[in-house]
């Protein structure tokens, strides 16, 4: 029998590291559907989960996969799915159900070129806004990015911890290059890995309100079979979970699930800063393009140009306070991403005219090279 947490140094792909991160976080249910370039996550989970007493199921499509992980979450376990563009589109309605019913779960999107079937085997970062707004209605979502196999491991754990802490779906946005690339991954001992589990209710079961927020604005979450007689619905509901079709109930519920994320931005948003103190030009990037950006920054610095780099580990909610503060010091921002400007729009919004905003991006299928970024830096410098 394998231990839930593999420890030590391993040379594995980003997808495998993601699966190992999920196991280390305590995930015991995976519902999935094969799709390049995310399939290896499902394959790895199908091998490991039965060995640790968990369950893997390949569902009939991504709609079912997403529904199954919500059911599993309400049965009390940590659950996840993984997919890419076309499957991510199919999951959207039930991601909304997860938001509305405050169901913790993790959805990994290993991005490929789109729209439609696009470039199945080639990377892109075109689903950033879909992750933010892909399900209908107004809501907040947590989405993370990973720029190495090591981060696929650690960010998957973070995704589970945030999902459990805030009772919300968390999306991990990877890309084909990170998913398929093999790299050294160092996995610590299980005792060194911090894991979080959802708050559980205590005390009186009769009359318990499963949507009445406790600390942090998050309500303790019972599981099916615990005796709380909960009702869970995707209709607008009150704190008992009962449907209430009024303007007031809508305002109350939506405001609460939006605020539960917004009020905890400081806890959720993580970035890494590289040479920002004296930077005149700041690169903003994430995922595989973060590596491009770091290399470009180092090359620019070697040429004596004051360039810094802000790496986004959390995509949503967007690190707007951080970018806004930097905009008072820097002259220009360059967002580096494999699309025609998605996070770029967020940077522009946050900078609010205080600095120039530029984009180095393309439609997908390959990475952006450091030279392409350096060229733009030189033009601006």
């Amino acid at each position, binding site marked *: *029998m394998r231990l839930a947490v593999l420890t030590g140094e391993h040379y594995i792909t980003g997808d495998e590291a993601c699966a190992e991160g999920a196991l280390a976080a305590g995930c015991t249910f995976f519902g999935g559907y094969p799709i390049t370039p995310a399939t290896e996550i499902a394959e790895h989970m199908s091998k490991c989960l*039965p060995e640790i007493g968990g369950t893997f199921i390949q*569902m009939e499509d991504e709609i*079912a996969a997403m529904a199954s992980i919500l*059911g599993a979450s309400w049965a009390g*376990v940590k*659950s996840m799915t993984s997919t890419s563009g076309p499957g991510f589109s199919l999951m959207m309605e039930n991601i909304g159900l997860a938001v509305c019913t405050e169901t913790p779960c993790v959805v990994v999107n290993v991005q490929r070129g789109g729209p439609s079937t696009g470039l199945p085997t080639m990377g892109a970062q075109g689903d950033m806004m879909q992750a933010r707004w892909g399900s209908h209605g107004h809501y907040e979502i947590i989405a993370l990015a990973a720029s190495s196999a090591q981060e696929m491991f650690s960010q998957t754990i973070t995704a589970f911890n945030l999902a459990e802490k805030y009772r919300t779906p968390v999306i991990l946005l990877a890309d084909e290059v990170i998913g398929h690339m093999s790299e050294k991954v160092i996995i610590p001992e299980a005792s060194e890995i911090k894991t979080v589990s959802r708050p559980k209710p205590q005390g009186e079961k009769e009359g318990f309100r499963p949507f009445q927020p406790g600390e942090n604005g998050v309500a303790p979450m019972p599981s*099916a079979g615990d005796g709380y007689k*909960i009702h869970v619905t995707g209709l607008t509901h009150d704190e008992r979970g009962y449907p209430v079709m009024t303007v007031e109930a809508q305002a109350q519920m939506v405001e609460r699930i939006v605020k539960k994320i917004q009020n905890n931005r400081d806890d959720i948003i993580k970035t890494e800063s590289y040479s920002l103190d004296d930077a005149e030009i700041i690169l903003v990037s994430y995922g595989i393009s973060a590596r491009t950006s770091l290399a470009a920054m180092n090359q620019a610095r070697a040429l004596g140009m004051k360039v810094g780099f802000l790496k986004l580990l959390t995509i949503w909610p967007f690190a707007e306070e951080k970018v806004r503060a930097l905009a008072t010091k820097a002259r220009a921002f360059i967002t580096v991403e494999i699309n025609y400007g998605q996070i770029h729009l967020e940077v522009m919004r946050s900078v609010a005219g205080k600095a120039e905003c530029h984009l180095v991006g393309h439609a997908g299928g390959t990475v952006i090279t450091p030279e392409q970024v350096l060229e733009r830096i030189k033009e601006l410098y």
Partner: protein
Amino acid sequence: MAADIQASQSEIVHPLDHLIRTDRIPHIWCPGCGIGTVFSACLKAMISSRIDLEKTCMVSGIGCTGRAAGYLNLDSFHTTHGRAIPFATGLKLANPELNVIVFSGDGDLFAIGGNHFIHGARRNVDMTVICVNNFIYGMTGGQVGATTPVKAKTTTTPVGNPDAPFNLPLLAWASGANYVARWTMLHIRKLTACIEKALTRKGFSFIEVLAPCPTNYGRKNKENSLETLRLYRDKTIIKNNVDPSELDMDFEKGIILGEFVSRERPTCIENYDRTCRIP
């Protein structure tokens, strides 16, 4: 005397009240609608089957029938349109101790959710699926569905339905369900007995229940509730164990009711444990 009667009446508690969220009554169902009768048959069967109710949950999709989960005073889930079965699959596989009941409409389970139904039955996930078949989309105001009889009028087939409906028991049998039955809401005792049986059996159990939707199907097809119930009495034949291919929905020929499939294929969890888990 009159005062006495009044006093004792106020203390009368319906024997199913403890299974109902009475604070959510009145329910949304129209006068003459058949869903409530099927729901109460289900509640009775839950009691008579003696399953552990604390470990029992109901999952519904979307529709008038899908509102049932919201009235049950047990763990209950009102999910998305068509997705009750995959949600229920996750619940059951993640906690095999749970008794899982899916209660939903024909459009939900067989039009938008048809793919999930056949795969749930194929895997033989241990759950009881009760489909209230009113031949139409009730909640959205009476559009054609995958179960609407040929020539029936709906708001989207104003001159009559050109397409053939599914034979649901045949589909369930062919997909692998362990237990398959069909009743109408008029056959309440037999229906309750079959639900009771389904709840205590292993594997995927499916019960189709015909029930009137006077508001939409009835009005469009000039058939009031009482006339629908007469059809249920006069145009049905009880024949257990008939070949499922004979179960077409044809009121001219007569609709066959009964218990059609009762077999012991291993369940999804049994297969997984046996095949995928290293002892």
